[in-house]
Structure formats: C-alpha cells, structure tokens
C-alpha cells in the first residue's frame, strides 16, 4: 500500500486497492502497486455505484503509489469523469509543492567601529519634522534637527545647531558612539540600546554638550 503520509486532508478508502485522498487542492488517487491494473479497475467499478455521487464535481489532481502507463491513465481518467462526475486535471504522479527553505541570513552584521575615523555623511540645512536620516556611519548635521525629525546613525552624531528631535547613535550596537550638539534638547536620545530623554524641569542647555555612555548610563556634559 502506498505510504500513509498525511497531506492534511481526509481519507476516504474505497477498499485496499484504491483510495481517494482528499486535500485542500483536490483528490489524490492512491493505488496499490502490487496488483494487476485490471484489479484496480475492478475495485473502482465496484464502488462506483455506492460512492459515485459523493465525489461529483471534485478535482483529481494526481496519483500516488503506482506508476501508470498512458493508456492506463486515460482508462482511469474516463471512469473518474464519466462515472464519478469528477474533474480530472492530472493523472500524473502527484508532486507536493516544495516548501521554500528559509535560508539563514549570512552572519555578516559587523558592528560599525569607525568612531575615530570612519565613513561620515554630512547633511546641510535643517531637518524638519517628518524627515529621517539613516546611515551606516557617522552623521554630521549643519543645521537644526526639529522635533519630529530623526537621525539614526551607526556611528556618532554631531549637530551644528539645536538637536530637538530624536538622535540614535551607535544604532548597530556600538555603545562607544557619542552625540554632540550646540543645543542638546532632544525629545529622545539613544546610544546603542540605551534610551534617555531631556529632564522635564530645567531651562535647557546653556552651551554645547556631549552625550556618551558610561557604566551603561547615558551621561551628558558640557563639551567646550
């Protein structure tokens, strides 16, 4: 008997020689390969009177267990369509669709370490609300970063103006990255995986400041 690999459908066995296996896509005809073809046809004909209306309209999508000669395929196809009222789309051996293998991503993600000398993007002008700059290196902004704008850099971030939006330095995980601004007033500041925000009280910065990580805390100090 053909292997009993389940395809997640129901099984209606007519007898041991021939079975109709139901799947979402249609019916697969399972046949015993150890008997003569004539015996398979007899078994099918035996059951057609009791079961033929059951399968009316169903689709035959393939066969299993027994390889058929072309002549045998057409004989069976004719019985299925004429006697059982089924739609025969294929009598060939059923090949289940291959499940796409999910290839693991090659582990290439090296953390950016060009904090002293590294690739740098220069942005001129003010970043207005809604704009986002993402870069796999350091970013220098010659202007303000307004609330609602963000810069996400794998390296350092330097702002020649007011940082009022969101800055994320060391975005790839490098917690040695720093953020510098003439006025450091971000809505949120992130370095590596650490997040902080400006204190609720206080009048705001009085001069240029630098933010960096020490002992897993973000420290902010006057810079010049």
């Amino acid at each position, binding site marked *: 008997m053909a292997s009993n690999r389940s395809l997640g459908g129901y099984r209606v066995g007519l007898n041991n020689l021939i079975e109709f296996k139901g799947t979402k896509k249609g019916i697969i005809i399972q046949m015993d390969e150890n008997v003569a073809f004539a015996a398979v046809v007899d078994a099918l004909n035996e059951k057609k009177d009791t079961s033929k209306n059951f399968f009316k309209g169903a689709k035959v999508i393939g066969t299993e267990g027994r390889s058929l000669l072309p002549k045998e395929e057409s004989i069976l196809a004719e019985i299925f369509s004429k006697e059982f009222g089924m739609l025969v789309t294929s009598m060939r051996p059923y090949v289940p669709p291959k499940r796409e293998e999910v290839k693991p991503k090659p582990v290439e993600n090296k953390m950016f370490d060009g904090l002293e000398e590294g690739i740098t993007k220069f942005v001129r002008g003010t970043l207005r*609300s809604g704009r986002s700059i993402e870069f796999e290196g350091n970013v220098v902004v010659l202007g303000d970063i307004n609330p609602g704008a963000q810069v996400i850099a794998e390296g350092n971030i330097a702002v020649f103006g007011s940082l009022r939006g969101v800055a994320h330095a060391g975005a790839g995980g490098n917690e040695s990255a720093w953020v510098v601004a003439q006025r450091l007033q971000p809505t949120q500041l992130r370095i590596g995986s650490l997040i902080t925000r400006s204190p609720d009280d206080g009048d705001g910065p009085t001069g240029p400041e630098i933010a960096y990580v020490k002992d897993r805390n973000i420290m902010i100090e006057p810079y010049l």
Partner: protein
Amino acid sequence: MGEVIVITSGKGGVGKTTTTANIGAGLAKLGKKVVVIDADIGLRNLDVVLGLENRIVYDIVDVVNETCRMKQALIKDKRFDGLFLLPAAQTKDKDSVTPEQMVSLTDSLKETHDFVLVDCPAGIERGFKNAIAGADRAIVVTTPEISAVRDADRIIGLLEAAELNDPTLIVNRIRIDMVKRGDMMNIEDMTDILAIDLMGVVPDDEHVVISTNRGEPAVNNGETMSGQAFMNISKRIAGEEIPFLDLDVQDRFMDRLKKLFNFSK
C-alpha cells in the same frame, strides 16, 4: 498674469479658512481681482465663513468634470467688488479632483484674476497635494501651540520638497497676555524652529467668532484688532510694507489700571 497662493497649515482648526476669507476680502477692498478657492472637498467651509452658502449652485467638482462652465460656478460676493468664490463640493470627497486638474483650473483663473487664493484642507494627503498643485507660493498658518508648530514644520518640509520654496508664516490667535506670562510660545520661539519669514500676526479676538457666525469677514471691521491685522496682511501681499501691529494696545482697562497702581507683576 496673477498669482496663485495656497494657504495651508497641516494642523486643522488654526485659521486657514478664516485667513483665506479675510485676505481675499482685504485684497478686494484694495481694488484687486481675487478668486478664493475652497479645496476642502467634502468638508467645505469657505462658503459658510463668507456667508455665501445659499448661493451655491455649481462647485469645483462640476467645473473639473465639465458639467458647467467656470463662470457658472464662480460666486460673486456682493459686498466686496472684485471678490469671487469657487466653492468645494460637500457630497464628494478629495479623490474627486486630481492635482493635474487643479493645475489647469488655477492656470486658467490666473489669467483673469490678480490673486487666486487656495484654501487648503488639513492633512498631508490628497487634499493637500491637490491644493498645492498649481500654487506659485504658500502661506503657512499656525497658532502658538507646540502641536500646531510641529505640524507646520512638517508642512514646510513638504512644501520645500514640492519646490514651493520660501513659504511665509502667519501666526494666528496669539494672546499677548499669555505670552508675557510665559504661558504661550512667543514669536521668536516659533520662527526659531520654523525658520521662515513672518508675514503677519493676528491676535485672538472674539470678533472673529462673531463675524464668522454672521458670514462676514472680520476684515470688514477696521475697529477690531483682528480686522486690522488681516488688512495689514492683505496690504503686505499686495506689496506694501506695513510694520507689525503693537498688540499690546489691546490691554484691558483693568490691566491698565493695575499698571498705574503697580499691582501687575
């Protein structure tokens, strides 16, 4: 050849429609030929603010679909010689018009009017894109509130991306008493973030509510601060250089009395 100016803000409720109606009326009072277009299809308001809603037969969607001629849709305002309104549709929505259709509409109106003012809907989607499509320049309206300024900043960014460079700013509904107490943003805070030129400042004024409900633009009443402010803005758009109003003048009597006796902070 006239000029197409879009009045936009991002945030809703800051005074775009009021500003459009008043600048339109103000420019008409200065003798200019003006058409104001309501681009807020589905939520039309410009007609109500101008008191012209009872006279609408055709609207912008009819013009764009060529159901009527432009002349049939334009409503002449009987109080202001030279002012016309092209109303929006109320039973359609913003997908009824495309940016390309707006461009050809404003291009043809430019030829017969000195100023075409487009009242932009709130938001940044299709309504906004339609409204800015044919514009030569933009005026951004905001109120002195963080949320409005945040949205105005976004809008300015989008205008610049659409190559409508150098928009100018109108700050609406400012309350000088609150600014002095430090409870409201002042003009410098706003221009610091928005970084565009200031076109005008309009104080918060009860008269605007009253006149809107009457369907009469505030600019008609030169006695009120808001009326004067809108008239000044109209004059600046027409090319005159007008100094900004001293909004301190609107101190209430009690404040003045207090100042006299040194009771105020």
